[in-house]
């Protein structure tokens, strides 16, 4: 079998505390060795001098829209976008039509991903039937079908009783329940963060308290049940503080943040552009600082994109009529490099940890490592390449990005899945 060598890159693999310039050896779709191996003769060499070589990145929060909303994205186009963004593995949300709330639906996701032949896809299952919040979905069947986590995502479980039982039931399978923390009563009709800008712009606000009360509720339920709780896209300073205190008390909770919440604030809505409308909404500069602090001290474990593709005709509307959501797979790495690595908040090693081993651990999947014997999912990043974000060049079917025209540094150069080059930038 042909031997491939990724030569002379800065190999960063937080799963094995590795950060040094060396070689990565791949054969038969697996990592076979790391380090100088004069005894081996490669059939193919990828020169990675000056580049970062890391485990294929994992995005544990994307919306691939299939089945049901193929005008926005398909599993094929979404996984192509994933590769272009450096992600070899994604976990996709179950708010499709129909929802992924049974074993067959989960298996359909695997089937479509296999047909597409791009990135690895893991389905996330609904926590309640039809995402209605009334009865638990057949979680056992979904686990059988390969689901790695459970959530009704943007239809948060309103009933504390159902959420309690979900955490208890999922504990049996050692699967996390993912919480989109939003009190729907407090955000009803809301368009953006409630604050100075919503007041000025005459737009109905969504107070940070709507996120905080639900995070608090779910933390207490995780404490009660011992279940595994993961807070999706925390966006508020108060939310970060609640998670920090819960971790200190030993509650089984993890958390993630999205890149847009790290670089943009509610002031971005001043032009009424729906590409800045997402849920949770962009908040204040103080929230941005708290989120960065949460990443630095480990309160926030993971960075995910919440990639939410929406066809142009849906977004090109009055701001209050346009749906929430932005794409993010193809911009996550450069935006995080600009927001976090550039100013020195996180090292590349820390950033890569939050994009590989941390989500792998939460989802209980084997990816996110370059350990010999692992599937050879590898991402090569050029940390010096400068470019301007242009959504018209996206692989995603949708273009709803808030980062259009942003000048960034660092670019995905090559992506391998199971030892095969699937993307070259």
């Amino acid at each position, binding site marked *: 079998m042909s031997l491939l060598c990724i030569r002379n890159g800065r190999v960063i693999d937080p799963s094995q505390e590795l950060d040094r310039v060396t070689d990565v050896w791949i054969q038969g779709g697996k990592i076979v060795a790391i380090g100088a191996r004069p005894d081996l003769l490669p059939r193919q060499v990828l020169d990675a001098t000056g580049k970062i070589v890391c485990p294929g990145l994992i995005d544990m929060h994307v919306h691939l829209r299939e089945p049901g909303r193929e005008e926005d994205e398909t599993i094929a186009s979404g996984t192509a976008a994933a590769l272009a963004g450096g992600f070899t593995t994604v976990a996709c949300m179950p708010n499709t039509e129909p929802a992924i709330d049974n074993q067959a639906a989960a298996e359909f996701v695997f089937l479509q991903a296999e047909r597409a032949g791009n990135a690895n896809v893991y389905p996330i299952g609904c926590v309640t039937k039809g995402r209605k919040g009334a009865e638990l979905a057949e979680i056992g069947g979904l686990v059988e079908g390969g689901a790695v986590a459970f959530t009704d995502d943007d239809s948060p479980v309103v009933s504390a009783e159902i959420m309690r039982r979900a955490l208890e039931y999922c504990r049996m399978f050692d699967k996390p329940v993912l919480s989109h923390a939003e009190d729907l009563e407090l955000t009803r009709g809301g368009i953006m963060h409630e*604050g*100075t800008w919503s007041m000025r712009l*005459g737009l109905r606000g969504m107070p940070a308290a709507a996120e905080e009360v639900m995070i608090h509720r779910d933390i207490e339920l995780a404490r009660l049940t011992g279940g595994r709780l993961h807070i999706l896209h925390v966006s508020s300073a108060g939310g970060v503080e609640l998670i920090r205190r819960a971790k200190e008390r030993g509650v089984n909770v993890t958390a993630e943040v999205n890149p847009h919440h790290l670089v943009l604030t509610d002031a971005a809505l001043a032009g009424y552009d729906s590409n800045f409308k997402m849920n949770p909404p962009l908040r204040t500069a103080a929230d941005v600082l708290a989120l960065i602090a949460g990443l630095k001290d480990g309160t926030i474990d993971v960075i995910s994109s919440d990639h939410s593709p929406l066809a142009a*005709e849906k977004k090109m*509307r009055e701001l209050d009529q346009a749906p929430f959501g932005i794409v993010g797979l193809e911009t996550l790495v450069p935006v995080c490099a600009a927001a976090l690595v550039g100013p020195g908040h996180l090292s590349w090693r820390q950033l890569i940890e939050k994009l590989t081993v941390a989500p792998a651990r939460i989802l209980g999947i084997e990816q996110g490592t370059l350990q010999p014997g692992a599937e050879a999912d590898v991402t090569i990043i050029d940390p010096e390449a400068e470019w301007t974000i242009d959504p018209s060049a996206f692989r995603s079917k949708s273009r709803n990005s808030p980062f259009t025209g942003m000048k960034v540094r660092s670019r995905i150069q090559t992506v391998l899945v199971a030892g095969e080059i699937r993307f070259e930038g």
Partner: protein
Amino acid sequence: MSPDSSQRNEPRVCWSRRHLLGLEDLSREEILTILETAERFVEVGERRRKKRSTLAGKVVVNLFFEPSTRTKTSFALAARRLGADTLDFSSSGSSTSKGETFIDTAKNIEAMGVDLMVVRHASAGAPHLLAQQLQCSIINAGDGAHEHPTQGLLDIFTIRQKKGRLEGLTVALVGDILHSRVARSNIHGLVKLGAHVIVCGPSTLVPPLITELKVEISHNLDAILPRCDVVNMLRIQFERQRSGLFPSVAEYARLFAMDGARLKKAKPDLLLLAPGPINRGVEITPEVADGPNSAILQQVANGLAVRMAVLQLLCGQPGEIET
């Protein structure tokens, strides 16, 4: 009549904008330019031959996606008096009810050769979207709870006309501040022109952060009334509210309505405005609305002059003001 009539033929024209989307965007000088231009149209309105031809050949469209009587009629008449061709479009009975998007509707109408669109929409920011997507000039005639610049301008114009100044006046905006586009436009304009603005209403309808716009907050109308030179009674925006923001209309009226008894606590020359339509008996009792302090009908008359001024500035040749 303003005192500087000798200079009237050379007004200070400070204007280079294509759109009027809100008073927050305008400088003090730009607002004064509109007010001074409007003054000249008030005089024109008092003459027998009211019609001008400065906008002859121009096409002005009223694009109203929300009901309106005053504003729509006022714009239509203002445009006709300047000699423009006018066209009315309302959302009911049109292609928007067949599912056409608002932007497509506007683009199709623009393709008929439109120079200026007057847009009212329930969504804040809708006129801004059109300003980006279309070539013609856009006037915001009310966008959701955001701004209603010509209403703000005509309120400010009426205050200046009645009081002779704005600098140093205390102006209270009373009622539903949270959902009021009229409040926002008034605040931005009045503060820029040196008035002291108090926003007064139930604490559920006055966002605390509004102090960032350099206004004072009050929840006690009786306490502030003796200090006020002008009170602008805003309408309760029943259509924009969710329920439960105040317990009952009766309690609201008891705390915030302008009635005869309350009026006695005010300065005798208190100027009373209401942007209309008023909910008689809720914000203002009939005897006060029709009484000597009220300038409600004057506001409507001034509205015409202000809108002629805005149309002229956006659509006519700069400096070419035919009087």
